[in-house]
C-alpha cells in the first residue's frame, strides 16, 4: 500500500468522524427541540412538581449547550449515557439489539443478492423477450411495494391463512423468514434492475465477443467474464443500499416484533428515551459510514483501473 493510499484512508476516516459528529449534533438538536420527554414518559396527570424532579434527575433542566457538550464529551469516550426508562447503559442496550439487526440485514442482503443478481442476469441474457419483461415486472413490483404493506400481506397469508410461519418474534429461525423476505424483496427488485443494466453494458464489450469467439459457453462467459466486470458498479450500488436496508429494517422490525435496532429505535422514540434514540442513530450512522468506507476500499482492489486514493477522494 502506497503512502498516497494511507493518506487517502486517513482523510476518509476524518471525513467519517466529521459525518458522525454532524449527525450526532443534528439528532441532539432535533430531539431536544421536539418536546419535553418527561411529559411524554410520565402519565398525563403527573403533578408538575414530580415532572420537575425527573427533569433535574435526567439533566434536562440544564441549558441546551451544556447538555450537548456534556453528551459529546462522554460519547467521545464511548459513554452514550443511560436510558431514561430503565437506567441501563445505552451501549449495553444497543449491543443487545445490534446482532439481531445484523442477522436480519445480512440475511436480507444475501437473499436479495441471490434473487436480484439471478433475475438481473437472466433478464440481460434474454433482453427484450418475455422472460426479460417478466423479470422487470417482478423488479418493479418488488421495489415499488411499500415494506409495511408487504409485511402485513405476508403475515395475513403465511401466519393467518396458511399458518405455516410464526407471525412475530425472534425465537426460532422460522421467525426470521418473513422479516427477511419483506426486507429483501424491494432490495432484490432494485438489484435486479441494476444488475440487468450493468450486465447488458458488459455484454456489449469486445472481450465478451472474444470469449464467445474462443468457444466459451454462455454460462462460462457470464460467470467468468461478464459478472466480475459488472460487479464494479454493483459494489458501489451496495454501498448505498446498506443504508436503505437499515432504514427498511426499522419498519420491518416493528411489523414483525423483531427485537433489533429498528424496533428499539421506534420504541425509544415513542417513549422519548433520548439517550437511547441518540445511541441507536449513532450506531446506524457508524455502520453506514464504515460500510461505505469498506466498499470504497474494495472498489480499488477489485478494479485495477482505479487507485485507492482516487476512490477515497484523496490526492493521486
Amino acid at each position, binding site marked *: 500500500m502506497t503512502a498516497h493510499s494511507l493518506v487517502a484512508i486517513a482523510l476518509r476516516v476524518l471525513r467519517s468522524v466529521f459525518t458522525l459528529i454532524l449527525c450526532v449534533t443534528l439528532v441532539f438538536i432535533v430531539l431536544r427541540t421536539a418536546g*419535553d420527554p418527561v411529559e411524554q414518559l410520565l402519565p398525563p396527570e403527573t*403533578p408538575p412538581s414530580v415532572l420537575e424532579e425527573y427533569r433535574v434527575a435526567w439533566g434536562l433542566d440544564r441549558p441546551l449547550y451544556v447538555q450537548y457538550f456534556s453528551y459529546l464529551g462522554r460519547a467521545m469516550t464511548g459513554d452514550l449515557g443511560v436510558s431514561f426508562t*430503565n437506567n441501563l447503559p445505552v451501549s449495553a442496550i444497543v449491543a443487545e439489539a445490534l446482532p439481531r439487526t445484523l442477522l436480519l440485514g445480512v440475511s436480507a442482503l444475501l437473499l436479495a443478492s441471490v434473487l436480484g443478481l439471478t433475475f438481473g442476469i437472466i433478464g440481460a441474457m434474454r433482453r427484450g423477450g418475455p422472460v426479460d419483461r417478466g423479470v422487470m415486472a417482478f423488479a418493479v413490483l418488488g421495489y415499488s411495494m411499500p415494506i409495511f404493506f408487504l409485511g402485513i400481506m405476508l403475515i395475513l397469508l403465511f401466519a393467518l391463512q396458511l399458518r405455516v410461519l410464526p407471525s412475530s418474534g425472534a425465537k426460532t429461525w422460522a421467525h426470521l423468514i418473513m422479516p427477511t423476505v419483506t426486507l429483501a424483496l424491494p432490495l432484490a427488485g432494485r438489484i435486479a434492475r441494476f444488475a440487468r443494466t450493468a450486465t447488458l453494458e458488459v455484454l456489449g464489450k469486445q472481450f465478451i465477443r472474444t470469449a464467445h469467439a474462443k468457444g466459451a459457453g454462455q454460462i462460462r462467459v457470464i460467470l467468468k467474464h461478464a459478472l466480475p466486470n459488472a460487479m464494479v458498479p454493483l459494489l458501489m450500488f451496495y454501498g448505498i443500499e446498506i443504508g436503505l436496508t437499515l432504514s427498511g429494517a426499522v419498519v420491518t422490525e416493528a411489523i414483525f416484533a423483531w427485537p433489533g435496532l429498528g424496533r428499539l429505535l421506534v420504541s425509544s422514540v415513542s*417513549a422519548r428515551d433520548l439517550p437511547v434514540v441518540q445511541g441507536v442513530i449513532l450506531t446506524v450512522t457508524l455502520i453506514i459510514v464504515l460500510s461505505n468506507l469498506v466498499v470504497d476500499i474494495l472498489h480499488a482492489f477489485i478494479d485495477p483501473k482505479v487507485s485507492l486514493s482516487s476512490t477515497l477522494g484523496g490526492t493521486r
Partner: protein
Amino acid sequence: MPQINRRLLLQGAALTPFIFNFVPQAFAAAGTSANRPEFTVAVAALPATLEPARELSNVGTRVTYSIFDTLIRRDFLGSPDGGGSQLKPHLATSWERVSASELIVKLRQGVKFHNGDELTAEDVVYTFRDGRLRGDKAQIPGGKPYFGILADVTAIDPYTVRFTTKVADVLLEQRLASWCSWIVNKRAYEQMGFDAYSRAPVATGPYRVVSHNQNEATVLEAFDDYFLGTPTAKKVTFRAVPELAARVAGLVSNEFDLITNIPPDQVAIIGGYDDIDVRSVVLANAHVLVFDNHDKLLSDKRIRQALCFAIDRQKLVDTLWLGKAEVPASHNYPEYGQMFVEGRKLPFDPQKAKALLAEAGYKGEKIVYKTQASYYTNALEAAQVLVEMWKAVGINATLQVVETSDQMKGNGAQIYNWSNSTRLPDPLGALWVAWGPGGEVQATDVWSPESRKVFTELGRALEAETDPAKRKVLFVKMLDAWEDEAPGTILYQPFEAYAIKKSIEWRPTTFYFMDLRPDNLRFPQA
C-alpha cells in the same frame, strides 16, 4: 444427485416439526407439569422495568400485577362490570383505624417471597420507607402523589405495621390497595440494588420473573408457593407485538392466547372467529377537554359553558365506540360507592349553548382546538366530530393536529385533549388529583386562580373531612363549581378490548391490571 421420491418426501415431512422447533412444545404438554398450560399474551408494548411503582402506566401494571401483591386488595371483579371498589384482605389479614391519621395493619403469616423469605413487617416498612416512594430524595418521585402523605411507617411486631399520615387521610386503605403499593422484598432489594431489582424483582405474586426484555418479552413462571393457591398457568409470557395484524394473526394461529389493545373498529372482525372472544371493559378513565383560561375569549366562562352544552357525548360514544364506551355522570363515578352522586348528568343542550354565546357577545372569533392524532384512541375522529358540533351552535372552531403534548398545550392552544384516571375510588383520587392544586391545570394557571377559588376551597375541606355525609355534601358542591366554571369537560369513558381464546375463563378489570391469579384465569380441562 439424490432422486426425490415418495420415501424422501415422507422423511422430509417427518423432520419438518423438528426444523420448526415444534417438538419441544408438543412434549411439554405431556410433561410433568403437564396439566398446566403455558399462557401467552401479546401486548402492544412492554414496560422498561418491572419495578411496579416506576411503571405507573397501563403497559407496566398489566405485567407487574402478576408478580406483586398489595397489603389490601381492591376487589374489581366483585362487581359485574369489573370495577368493584370493595377492599379485601390480601397480604394483610385485617386493618384497624386507630385515628383519622393512623392505621394498624396485621400481616398474613406464612406468605413466601419468590426467594423463599417469609413476608414480615420489615418488608412492609422497607417498601414504604422515606427515600423510596416519598421524601425529598425519593427513588421513585412518581410515588409521592400516593404516599407523600405518610409521616411514618413502623413495625410493631413481625406481623403488625403502623401507618401514620401527616394529616387525617380517609383514603389510606385505598392507597394501600392502589397500583403504587406493591410490597417488595427487603433483602433482595438491598442486595440487588434499585436498578437490578427493577429488572428482576422478587415479590410474593403468583408468578416470578424468568426474564425481561422490553423489546421482546417478559417471561414469568408459576410460583407454586403462592399464598392464594397454585397458579393455573405453568408459564406466562408477555410478548411485545406492536403491530395489530401480527397480534391478531398470532391469536388466530394459536401462537397467543390473549391479545390487548383491540381498536373499536376491529372488534367485530376479530370477534367473528369462532374460537375467539372479544372481552371489553369500560375503563376507570375519562377522555376530557381542557379550556385554556389564558385565552381572552375562553376567560369568559359562558363561552366555556357553551362549548360543554354543544357536545352530544352519547353520539360520540355510539358512532366512534360502538356504544361500548360510556358517558359518565360528570366527574362522578359509581365506583366511588357512597360518595357517588345519583342523578347527575352532563347535559347536551344546543339551544342553551346558543343563548350563552349570545349573552357573552361572541362574534364568531376563531377558537383553536389542538389534538395529537393517536395518543388517545379515537382522538382525531372525536375532534373532527366535536368541531362540527360546535359549528352547529355557531362556534367558529378549527382543528389543529400536532405531534407532541408540548405543542398541544403550548402557546395558542385554546382547547386541548387530556385524560383523567380514577386512581383511587374517591373524588380525591380522581377529580381532585387532576383539577386540584397538585395537578397541571392549576399549576400552569390554565384554570385561572379566580375561577378555581371556590373549587379549591371545597377540595381542601374535603381532604380534611372524615364524616361521610359531610364529605358527600362537599363533593356535590365541588362538582357544581367544576361544572359551572367549566375549566374543561368530560367526553366519555373509553373501553379497552381484549381478544382471547373462547375456552379460557378470564375477566378484565376497569383499571389496567391484568389479573392472572388462580381465581381469574382458568383453562379448559384437557
